[in-house]
């Protein structure tokens, strides 16, 4: 929960003396689902632009873009969820985030909201979800009628993003600490 802790924008104390940390999330949609990332990690939000593909990388890697002179890789979140790749239009959005010391982009459908919640409103993921290769999900938040999945960026982008496959047939994948089988196709 490192990112959530860093995100503690304000700290209040309720009657019981409990520390209530507020967390701000940028929420976005991929298909019909809504997800959120810690706003403190978000560098900028930009419209989709054509990437330069990287050879022999998995589906989730859309390639790299030039962001003011830095070469920034873009990941397709839809593909990450095991769905077919996004077919991006100019309405698609790339959320540029900083993870560890790296800058990466996440391709999503659209940004929907900025959500402010208390830390204790984050509910843990049901166990079943973890088994199915969504180990990067940090928890679930209910906002009104909507359910928002909180993405742990550190979990999604481990320091080695691409487990380079030395032996043929072992397809490189986006690494997540709690998964050994690829969620990507």
């Amino acid at each position, binding site marked *: 929960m490192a990112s959530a802790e860093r995100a503690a924008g304000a700290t209040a104390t309720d009657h019981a003396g409990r520390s209530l940390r507020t967390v701000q999330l940028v929420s976005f949609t991929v298909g019909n689902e809504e997800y959120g990332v810690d706003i403190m990690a978000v560098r900028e939000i930009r419209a989709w632009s054509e990437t*330069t593909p990287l*050879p022999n990388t998995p589906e989730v890697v859309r390639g790299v873009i030039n962001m003011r002179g830095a070469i920034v890789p873009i990941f397709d979140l839809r593909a990450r969820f095991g769905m077919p790749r996004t077919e991006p239009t100019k309405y698609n959005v790339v959320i540029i985030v900083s993870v560890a010391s790296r800058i990466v982009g996440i391709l999503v459908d659209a940004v929907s909201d900025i959500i402010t919640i208390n830390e204790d409103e984050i509910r843990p993921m049901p166990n079943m979800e973890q088994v199915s290769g969504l180990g990067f999900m940090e928890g679930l938040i209910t906002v009104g009628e909507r359910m928002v999945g909180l993405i742990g960026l550190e979990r999604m982008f481990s320091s080695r993003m691409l487990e380079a496959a030395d032996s*043929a047939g072992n397809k490189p994948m986006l690494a997540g600490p709690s998964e050994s089988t690829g969620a990507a196709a």
Partner: protein
Amino acid sequence: MDDLAQFKQTFFAECEELLGDLEGHLMALQSGEGDNNTLNAVFRAIHSIKGGAGAFGFDRLVAFAHIFETVLDLMRDGRLEPTPDSVLLVLHCADILSDLVKAAQNGTELPADHENEGRKSLIDLAATVGVNADPHAADDELAALDAQLAAGGPDALMEAAAAPEPAAAPEPAAPAKAPMLKFLVKFTPRDALYQRANEPLILIRELKELGSFLAKADAEGVPPLDQIQPEGAYIKWEFEIETDKGEQAIRDVFEFVIDDCELEVTCLNPPAAAAEAPAQPAADAAAPKPEAVTPAAPKPATPAPAAAKADPHAAGDGATAKPAAAAKPEGGAGGETKAVRSIRVDLDRVDKLVNMVGELVITHAMIAQQTEHLHADQHPELANGLAELSHHIRDLQESVMAMRAQPVKSVFARLPRLVRELAMMTNKKIRLDMSGENTEIDKTVIEQLGDPLTHMIRNSCDHGIENPDDRVAVGKPPEGVIHVSADQRGGRIVIEITDDGRGINREKVMRKAIEKKLVAPDATLSNEEIDNLIFLPGFSTADTVSNISGRGVGMDVVRQNIQSLGGRVHIQSRPGQGSSFILTLPLTLAVLDGMVLKVGIQSYILPLANIVESLRPEPDQINIVANQSELLRIRGEYVPLVYLHRIFKVPGGIDDPTKALVIIVELEDSSKMGLVVDEIIGQQQVVIKSLEENFDPIRGVGAATILGNGRVSLILDVAGIKHIAENESQQRPSPQARLAAPALQASA
């Protein structure tokens, strides 16, 4: 001790500079271009090294530098004529000095007799004009003292400075408690004392600090007011001092004025033990203290000349008796605090600047591209502004690159010595010519150029240049020549090492390559290809082991080093006439010369350094071996074809090589590969961008760059591409295809 470490860093950095300059001066002397200024500069360099070495207690270095300095002093005074022989000796001794500096720097110990021969020769040379350069000789004790003091460090210096002079001091040497004695001091200044900015009042102040003090001024000598000279000395002084610090302390106060005054120091109540020792005449006793101190170190009983045998090792080596104080190796140069015209800047900052300028170049290209459709006559200011901006950016880029650039001189400077040593070791006569030393090249390149250059020179000396007899036999002058040149040609630096030796023995090289299974026995190779076999890993013609740094390292390492710098190296040989190593290097590592290639819907950058040639093959040049592997036959050689669009899985690439373009690339292991691409778009200089800053390494891709349209383009890594190609071909049922190919396959 941080300061000490820092001083040492500064010292060694300075030594390196001085030794580099020294080499240049000595070369000038040798070629007869030197004059007295050159000799002066040589002297000063040795002198400075000695001075610093003394401060740090590198006594072995000090001892040698001292003798060296003495001989050079004789030379610059004209007492010794700089003959070819003596200049050669000086050169040799400069090498020794350089060894001693290095040993001191690394904290290593050279063999005890390392400098003996040179030392003896220097002493002998000085002796020819009647000068004893041996610091252990009785008339020359200060250097020995310096060395002795320095060996003990500053503390020893302090002790020695404070210790009473054994011969002259009347009081007992080391009583636990010094007796309180009363002295009468008669002091009569002369005019000269004032002219040297000395001041009796300061002396009085110092005397007062020694103990109870009474001063009497005798103003009888003061002339009438109108005759007083402003700098005249008219007053005589008498002081009575009661002190436990001894007579020497009093004399010390007058250290600097002793020749500009009359001084008498008398003990009024001498202790019984010292009563018999008569007060020494002032002039003698007041000589500056250090000279009078007898060194405690035992003098070598037998100086060099007594060694009758020719064996230089038999020469006395008193100077080496003490191990040099070990210095911890310190990386980098010390931060100097000089108020001069240059500043030291962290290389990171310069690199950042280089990067920023790279960005600027790209941004400019983008703006230019986006405004292309505008008519210049409708937007004259914009067009002019852009043109001007372009001009400024180019200037800026050059200036920034120049900040990282250094003349190759700093690498070339070590070559003369190398050649001398190699010549000596191989009993050959070799002259080194150099040109283009002022050619500038990126600092990182310079730093990594030393080793490969050394190896190539070594190769030329070992294998190229013949023995004098052999040379004469084939009608060559007995002295071989190695020419090293640097030159800038079209955005790259070209360094050539040419010898006039025997050239490459192709038969022998071929035999060896087959023997080592580097080449198929039935392979037919062009002369040039045979010559360049020496760069293959596992190929080493080094039959003789020489003592030069980097022994046992083959030419493959040289090639690797050069290629890791983005450069190339190859050899050209003319049997019987000699060989040339030709190195081309990029001016900077931040920018790369690349070829823009189109493959399907993608474009890539291929480093120019990898490209041998490109061609559109004829159908009969393509041989299909064992089902699938395609080989391109080109001038009798078979080169495997690799389709870039297949390797990178790019849709839309041309599959028929006779309709596509084959780029023959050369890999680090000298193997070749025919890269099949759709077309070449053009040549371009690109700014290298790291892919790994935000992503993981990708096989086949070395780095990225940003093109004028703002898009990212990938820079190819041919070794990675080969690796992918080989792995994929292994999955196919024809693994023997490559083995059958008579190309220069080294181990994969």
